[in-house]
């Protein structure tokens, strides 16, 4: 293929997918590096393949990630020492000025100490400010979700489905309860429930079981000890549900249910 255009249009997608073996891949790369037309086709193929990411079950990152990121960003912007690092002592002229220096040294030391303390205080205030910004953003998001949930509850066609624990559930995971609100017309769904913590290598996964077809993943979650889980998700609109269920799956979830069902809520 080196020096020639790829023979089939799908070659671009297969390259973007990473499916080509070494020799094919190298030949493809050596051509695309020198062909603007093919580089453009590859950019579009990368986009077509990139969106396959949307097949992954939704998993929200923990709020701590954003908090740590913003701290890292603030620290990098200001840098350790910040303006202090740029403060250089005046060059000494020796002799005549030596006594002046001796006299001014305690003042300069006090001034430097005060500067360091002020910088530390400033750092602390910046961190508090970042925390407050994060808290405000989280609260705004929670409020928006609550409003959406209120609208969902108020809708006439919304189903309220309690989910109950199953007798055959694995030991320690047989106690739990949850409630699902499902609006098929909008494809909106909320989950509120309690379950014991999942084992380290496992996650809980919520499923919508339709009247026809395979179960649809509605989210993966790992509740902390004693805490309620709340989730709101958008599913394909217009799906008639037969029941909702929560299963115990390998960490991160699976495309289809493979583990034991711990909660089930049939639609009566």
């Amino acid at each position, binding site marked *: 293929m080196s020096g020639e255009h790829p023979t089939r249009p799908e070659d671009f997608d297969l390259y973007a997918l990473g499916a080509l073996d070494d020799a094919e891949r190298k030949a493809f790369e050596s051509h695309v590096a020198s062909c603007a037309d093919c580089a453009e086709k590859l950019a579009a193929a990368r986009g077509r393949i*990139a969106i396959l990411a*949307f097949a992954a079950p939704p998993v929200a990152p923990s709020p701590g990630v*954003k908090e740590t990121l913003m701290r890292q960003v*603030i620290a990098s912007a200001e840098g350790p020492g910040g303006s202090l690092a740029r403060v250089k002592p005046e060059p000494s002229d020796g002799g005549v000025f030596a006594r002046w220096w001796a006299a001014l040294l305690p003042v300069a030391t006090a001034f430097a100490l005060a500067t360091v303390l002020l910088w530390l205080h400033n750092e602390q205030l910046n961190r508090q400010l970042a925390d407050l910004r994060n808290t405000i953003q989280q609260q705004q998001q929670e409020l928006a979700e609550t409003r959406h949930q209120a609208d969902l509850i108020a809708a006439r066609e919304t189903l309220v489905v309690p989910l109950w624990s199953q007798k055959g559930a694995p030991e320690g995971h047989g106690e739990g309860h949850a409630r699902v609100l499902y609006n098929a017309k909008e494809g909106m769904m909320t989950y509120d429930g309690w379950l014991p913590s999942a084992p380290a290598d496992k996650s809980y996964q919520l499923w919508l079981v339709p009247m026809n077809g395979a179960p649809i993943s509605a989210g993966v979650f790992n509740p902390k000890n004693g805490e309620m889980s709340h989730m709101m998700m958008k599913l394909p609109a217009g799906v008639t549900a037969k029941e909702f269920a929560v299963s115990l799956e390998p960490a*991160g979830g699976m495309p289809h249910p493979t583990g034991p069902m711990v909660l089930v809520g049939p639609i009566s």
Partner: protein
Amino acid sequence: MVTAEKRAELKATDASLIDRIVQRDESALAALYDRYSGMLSSVLNRILRDTQAAEEILQDIFYQLWRNAAQFDASRGSLSGWLLVIARNRAISRLRRHNPASGDELSENTVVIASNLESSIARQELMSKVKGALDNLPKEQRAAIELAYFEGLTHSEIAQRTGDPLGTVKTRLRSAVETLKRDLHP
């Protein structure tokens, strides 16, 4: 109450948020994080099946964006596409324990996505569309696509994993990408 500032950030384009990051505006990075972290976290967790590793990579990607935002040229490709490609590359490199693939920089990896993914509704609609398109593939084709995309396996490695002849695997993947292209980008 959602403030006017928050509403403005929800409506801001990726390109304008990148411009603000270049001017060292932390709130613009926070807005892009709010917009895309869920999308990236899902694919990272699906590939790695390790929440801690996924969150490390997620944080690292956004920190790289903060440091190198000036390299991004919105006229050449989409930010959401670049984020998805980098997240997948890094997760697969971690999974297969080799160094991150080259072409990781904002200026090197041009990705063009036909849909505008800046609104959460657009992302949710695309999610339904992609899931529907994959559900419509024959079982073997879907499995081959998932092995390539989520596990980073090549034709030969898929053949080895599934025990199917190499030619069969190649045909399946070729048919699968053709069908997906037709269904998702008519």
